[in-house]
Structures are given as C-alpha cells and as structure tokens.
C-alpha cells in the first residue's frame, strides 16, 4: 500500500508540472497599450557588455549604446516623460523572460536570425555587427582559419556566435560560458585560445584590456534588432517608426559616435 501511495504522489506531482507547462502565457496582452497606461517600457538589457550595456559600479547605472537607444526609443513612443525601466538579462535568460512577460522588449546585442523570428518579433536592424575573434596580443591565431583541432574557443550560451564558430571552424572545441565577463576572464586564465562573438562586443573587451586584440575581421553578418514577443505587432511597428525618426533627426548618428567614435580599428560606416 505504501508503495502505491508513493506512486500516486509521484504521478500527481508530474501532472501538476505538465499542466503548468500547458498553461496559457500571461504575456499575451498588448504591450504598447500597457506601456501607454503605465508610461513605462520595460527593457531587457545586458549589464556585462562594454559599449552596449555595462553596469557602472560607481554610479550603479547600466550604460551603453543599447541603453541610450532604449531610452531614445521610449521617449519617441511615450513622449518626453516616458520612462525606460531597465532589467538585466543575459543571452540565455532573455528569451524565457520575454516569453514569461517579465520584460516588454529586448535590446541586448541580439542578432536577428530566422530561428529566432519563429518565436519572436524583430524590429529593423539598428546595428550591423559581424562575428570576429579576440586573442591575446602575439597569439599565433590571426583569423578563424588558424584554429586547429583541439583549440578551445570560448563563446557565450544562447548567442548565435557559438553556432557560427562551429560552422566556420568545426575542428575547434567550443566552450560555452554564461556571460561575456566570464568568457573574457576564462580567456585571460588560459581556458581557451580565443573568445568569439560580435566585433562590437570584442572591441569593448579590447578597450578594457589592450593586451587582447580583435583579429581576422568579421566572418559573419550579425544585424542586431530589438526583439518583442511573437504577435506584438503594434509595439513592433511603433519601434520601427521610432528608429526611423532617430535615424532621420541625427540622434542615432550622435549615439553611434558617442560609443564607437574613438575605437581604433572600428569602422562606424560598416555598422550603421
């Protein structure tokens, strides 16, 4: 009898989990309408990525190009009093968070890909990045072609760059860590020979520690877009319109120059 009770309890537990999994998502309301009511757009942003979204430990604020874009777009949509609430995400938490309704939109160095477009809405691209390699100065690796069998390349979980490097250098082993700060630390302690991700992010790491350099140029195209939950057409349109306005009135160029203007080896014209 006791065994039977155990079995029933186990089945009960599993069915609760399954029912929870089939439940309708709470994230199906119209976010544009909700944002107008609360005068706030909740943005998922990176806090570990220099130049795009990095926590400034002195001020406690997250700063970067993505952040400035988020604030500018919020003001375009909600007016000058509109508030941009920033929520930290990482490459592997951002999709579950938007699916769960914790955030309205993702502006977090997110590449537009066909796979992602199946589950998310994307705006037009606001930054044309490309994937590259970051290595220690003097490393024998000058481009993705120099990666040999057994070379360990460090990437970040949930980013497109791990798939791309597996295609571009199938002989190399890819190590996936949870964020860019950890990936860069792992490179410094010799866990791998290179970090691979989008050039904009790599230039940010190189700026922080000039002993590490970006090599080989971009071997993929990674257009960044703002992601919204599938079906949020109103908000997607509103954001596309806002990006167009920012491009026209010069705000966009000003922000690009602010963050990327003084980086050696970085061609601003390439990314706009």
């Amino acid at each position, binding site marked *: 009898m006791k065994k039977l009770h155990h079995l029933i309890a186990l089945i009960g537990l599993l069915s609760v989990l399954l029912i929870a*999994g089939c439940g309708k998502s709470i994230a199906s309301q119209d976010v544009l309408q909700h944002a107008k009511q609360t005068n706030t757009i909740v943005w998922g942003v990176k806090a570990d990525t220099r130049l795009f979204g990095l926590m400034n430990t002195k001020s406690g604020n997250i700063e970067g190009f993505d952040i400035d874009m988020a604030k500018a777009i919020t003001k375009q949509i909600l007016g000058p009093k509109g508030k941009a609430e920033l929520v930290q995400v990482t490459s592997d938490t951002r999709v579950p968070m938007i699916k769960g309704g914790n955030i309205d939109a993702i502006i977090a160095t997110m590449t537009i890909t066909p796979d992602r477009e199946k*589950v998310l809405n994307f705006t037009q691209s606001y930054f044309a990045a490309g994937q590259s390699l970051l290595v220690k100065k003097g490393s024998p690796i000058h481009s993705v072609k120099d990666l040999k069998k057994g070379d360990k390349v460090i990437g970040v979980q949930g980013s497109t760059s791990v798939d791309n490097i597996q295609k571009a250098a199938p002989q190399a082993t890819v190590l996936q*860590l949870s964020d860019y700060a950890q990936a860069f630390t792992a490179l410094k302690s010799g866990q791998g020979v290179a970090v691979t991700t989008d050039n904009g992010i790599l230039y940010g790491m190189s700026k922080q520690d000039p002993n590490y350099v970006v090599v080989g140029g971009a071997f993929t195209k990674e257009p960044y877009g703002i992601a919204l939950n599938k079906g949020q057409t109103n908000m997607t349109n509103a954001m596309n319109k806002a990006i167009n306005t920012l491009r026209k009135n010069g705000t966009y160029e000003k922000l690009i120059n602010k963050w990327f203007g003084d980086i050696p080896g970085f061609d601003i014209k390439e990314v706009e």
Partner: protein
Amino acid sequence: MLNILVNNFPELMSGLGYTLMSSLIALVGSLIIGTAFALMEISTHRWLSVIGNVYVEVVRNIPLLVITMAFYVIVPQYIAQIDGFTAGTIGLTIYTSAFIAETVRAGIQSVAVGQMEGARSVGMTYTQAMIQIIFPQAFKIVIPPLGNQFINLVKNSSILAFVAGFDLMYQGKIIANATFNTFDTYLAVGVLYLILTMPLSYFMRYLEKKWAVA
C-alpha cells in the same frame, strides 16, 4: 518533453555521463577528505584540531560557485592548467568535504564516551579503538545525514554548467537556447537528475535499514 528527450538524446546522455562521473569522483573524494578533517577536528592534538576547524568553517561558509570559479580562473593562471570539468569536480569535492566532516564528527561524538574509555582500558590503542569500536557505531548513525550530503552533491554537480564542464545542466542550457523551449528542457533535465538521485536515495535507505542501530 518527450520531443526534447528524443531529439537531443545523445547530448543529454553525454551530459548525464559527465554528471555521473563528476559526482562519483566527488563522492569518493569528499568522503575521504571529509573523514580526515573530522578526525582532525576531534583530535586531542591542539594544532590538528585548529586546522580541522578552520578548514571546515572557511569552506562550508563560502558559496560553491566562488570555490569553483577560484579553481577555474585563478588556479590556471598561477598553478596548473585545469579545464572546467576538473575545476568543477575539485570545487564540488572540497565544498562537500566540509559538510561531510561535520556529519562524521557529529557521528563520532555521539558514540558514548564510555565506549572509547572501555576500549582503551582493555589495552587498545587510540587508532585501534577508533577503527574497531567507534567507527562501526558512528557509521550507522551517520548514514541518514550522509545520504543527504550525497544527494546534495549530485544536484550541486550542476555547478559544472557554469565553467563549461559538459554536464547535464550545461547541455540543458544549450538545448533550451537552441529550441527556445525552456520549460520542457528543464523538465527533462529534472527527470534525468531524478534518475540519478532516486536510486541513491533508496540505496541509502536500504543501508540504513540493513545496519539499523540495534
């Protein structure tokens, strides 16, 4: 959930293998190290007992993630080139050993003092009395709490995911990111962890019954 299991079967099985291997190494390692430190803690030799106490208090009061990151990041820079799997397994072993030391110490100390006195009075040495009289009794007492530690150890092995240790959780994160099906993936991962921990749990209960304190 079945979809996820079927489509990613090789990755999940490889992850399960790494988790199992790391858990087994850490289980044996932490049991040996933990018992050694437990003996140091109760030693009548003052310095040994100080070292034992300091080790236990420092290690069990630091998060597992911090210990593991230290082995992953700092050790390769100054001491030896170790990869994520090794760093994670060492971190797990050291972390768990502190808890096992406390468990074993409590077990030994719960054996009545008269047992040791009696053994010594019939001419046994301290070591003989420990091994032949105290250990067998203490072992029965510590089985249930040791079982807890072992189950925690298996679950804590998910720390490997943070240092690219190719374990079950690491594969789960990658699959969740590739399929965007977070819920089902972690449900599958959870079930696979159950497959590892449930038999362990029942085995410990079996031991407990078999060697029940008379």
